[in-house]
């Protein structure tokens, strides 16, 4: 079984996602990076499901997909409103709650 390869791919994708979330200067790209992290998680779930011969992994992956879709909907709506209010989509400009 090539579980290791799947896990490595997943870890790489997850790392890429984290890097994107922390460094990108456009909120949409931050959201896209979050998607990347979710995909990494899905790969893990499916890979483990296949290795353990258990359908739960696939089922969870489906749930994650569904929730990710909902999350993107909300996320994009927030981005849109931020852009309307601030005329910018840079996450650094959203600092109203600064202490």
């Amino acid at each position: 079984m090539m579980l290791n390869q799947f896990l490595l791919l997943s870890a790489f994708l997850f790392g890429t996602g984290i890097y994107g979330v922390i460094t990108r200067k456009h909120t949409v790209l931050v959201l896209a990076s979050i998607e990347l992290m979710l995909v990494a998680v899905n790969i893990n779930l499916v890979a483990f499901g296949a290795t353990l011969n258990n359908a739960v992994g696939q089922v969870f992956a489906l749930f994650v997909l569904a929730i990710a879709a909902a999350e993107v909907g909300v996320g994009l709506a927030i981005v849109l409103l931020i852009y309307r209010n601030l005329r910018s989509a840079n996450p650094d400009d959203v600092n109203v709650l600064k202490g």
Partner: protein
Amino acid sequence: MKHYWFLDNAWLIPLIPAISYFVILLFGKRFGERAAWIGLASIGSAWVLACGTVVQWISHVNASEHGGEPGGEHGAVETIRAFGRSIKLAAEGASAGGEGHASFVANPIIHSTTWFQNNGFKLDVGIHIDGLAVMMLFVVTTISLLVHFYSTEYLKGDRRFNHYFAALSLFSASMLFLVVASNTLQLLVGWELVGLCSFMLIGHWWEEKPNSNAALKAFLTTRTGDIGLLAGVIMTFFVVQRYTGTGSFDITQVNQAAIGLSLDGNSKSLLFWCAAALLLAIIGKSGQFPLHTWLPDAMAGPTPVSALIHAATMVVAGVYLGARVYPIFHEGLNIGDGGINLMAAVGGATLLVGAGLAFVQNDIKKVLAYSTISQLGYMVMGLGVGAWSAAIFHLFTHAFFKANLFLGAGSVSHSGAHHSFDMKNDMGGLRKFMPKTFATFMIGTAALIGVPLTAGFFSKDEILATASANEYTFFKYVGLLGAVMTAAYMTRCVYLTFFGEYRGGHADHGDAHDSHAAHTADGDDHGHDHGHAASNDHGHDANGGPHESNFPILGPLYFLSFMSIFAGWIFAPMLHHIFHWEIFEKFPLWVDPHVGSRGFPILEHPEFAWIDPILATAAGVVGVTLAYLFYWRKAYGQNITERNGALGAGKKLLVNKYYLDVLYTDVIVGATKGPIAQAAYWVNQNVIDNVLRYTGKGAAGAAKFVYKYIDQKGVDGIYNGSAAGTSALGGLSSKLQTGRLQYYALLVLFLLSAVAFAVVITN
């Protein structure tokens, strides 16, 4: 073993129109109105392939009949691989129970590939080609081809011309997919796609509210029946599981399991509920009483679509399902026993209900719609009384003459009545203006009312003859009564449309349209094709008066008229009795499933007796005569329904469609809606309000006490103290709140990494 290319590759037939759907949808704008030719070409090639399957299936049957290979090696190899023991039983049954027609085995051509598999369960998708499927492939592609061709003229200049042809392609593709389905789950997919496409096409002119309402009604009503289909399809799985140990949706296995379980004598209730659930699906899809109400409203769609829905695709899907898994019905509902059963009762009721309603319609398409309901009742009743071949044959002939009538009505409306379908106000006397349309319409009418030697005569006759042979005498008389009514309402329809004086002479074309648009808003008395935008582009409409249609409309009518007469001659016991030519009894040979008595109930074809055609003809004559006296000569005076109480009450009942729509919207929906609202209101007023009132009073009393002694002295002190402390802490922690999103993300990452690290170490 000979290979039958067309039969083996029948999966191409649904695939081609499906591809055409995507091509038109994605690239339609680039082609403009030429997109219609993509649809036409795709359905044309599907038609050629379907004709190929017809030819090869006939040679397959002939080869099997003349002792080519007992068991038909080609099909048998496939079948044995699929399910070990059953095929041997089928062959035995065939040799044992061979009385004349069922004495040889012509196996269906089955090919399949894995759709998906999970945890040991494998689901196939594939083709199951037998006489029934081949016949349906031919009918669907033929009617669809003619409708495509007709539509190029009828919808010229429509605002969503490409969209229309795309939907038409998908509609044909889904129906063909349903027809070739090799398992019930695949059939369900095709079934739902057909429902979706009919929704799209009925609501083609959705800008007008009645049209989109009609589309919704069609979708939701058939959906009610689809619950039955879903339940039934799941039960077919368990029928097979009960019989063989492993469940399956495969149609051949389902049929064998139904027969086998019934022979074993147990599991009758499982078969009954499976049959009942599937019957509900048929009731919804095929417009059977009491869920037929969507079908007349579906007239809101363009006329060629109505022809397609009524002749070949949507509504016959239900009958096809009934024929496809017939053993379930046959064993579950004890069809072989005679007397009365659920399926025959539903069909018989529909037959009379539909025919009755056709009398009071002023819209020519609605007359035809109710006539379709009534004819579908014939088919379902035919299946219910064990007249499988006759019911399927009626489906076959009905497809041609009903398409002929619908397209004829479209021609009348398109060229003779300013796109209106109102017989009372916009038609009359069109015989003189449109002689060719008149001739084809008369041929279709003759076939529908069963004038001797036309297609409808033979198919209806065969249903009635088999009904009496199978000891369903009651349903034979229901059928005869239906024939009387059919003859009568079609006479009325033809009289109003083609005879008398032309009543559509509105001076101003535009005004006529506006007034009709207003009519449609307040009810369904005036069905109406809303090609207004289109009609302005028609140069010839400027001339106003009614005139003959041109070739794209008349061509299909000629072909369908030809078929309306001669399609019946391949199953004509009467002609066979006189001439003894083989061609007159080929249909049951080609279409009946020759899989032996363990795979399908033995189908009886009664001996010909002169009494049947004589009775049927007499019924037709009585109907025509009565209608002639009543509507044409006005033998009972002008307004008999207003003067005679009983007749008036009958008419009122019919005009209101037996109050079924009232029952559905007001009684059922209203009854569930109203009491719930009232109960909720009562609970609100009496329970919740009182609870709130007394809680409020109690709380007020308690509050006074609390305020004086606890709040002012104890709590305030604590708060003031803690507020000072919090303020100090907050000042500290606000240093962390940089307000930068990604900084927070980094913090979370560090924290989680720390937790993960801790977990790894401690483990």
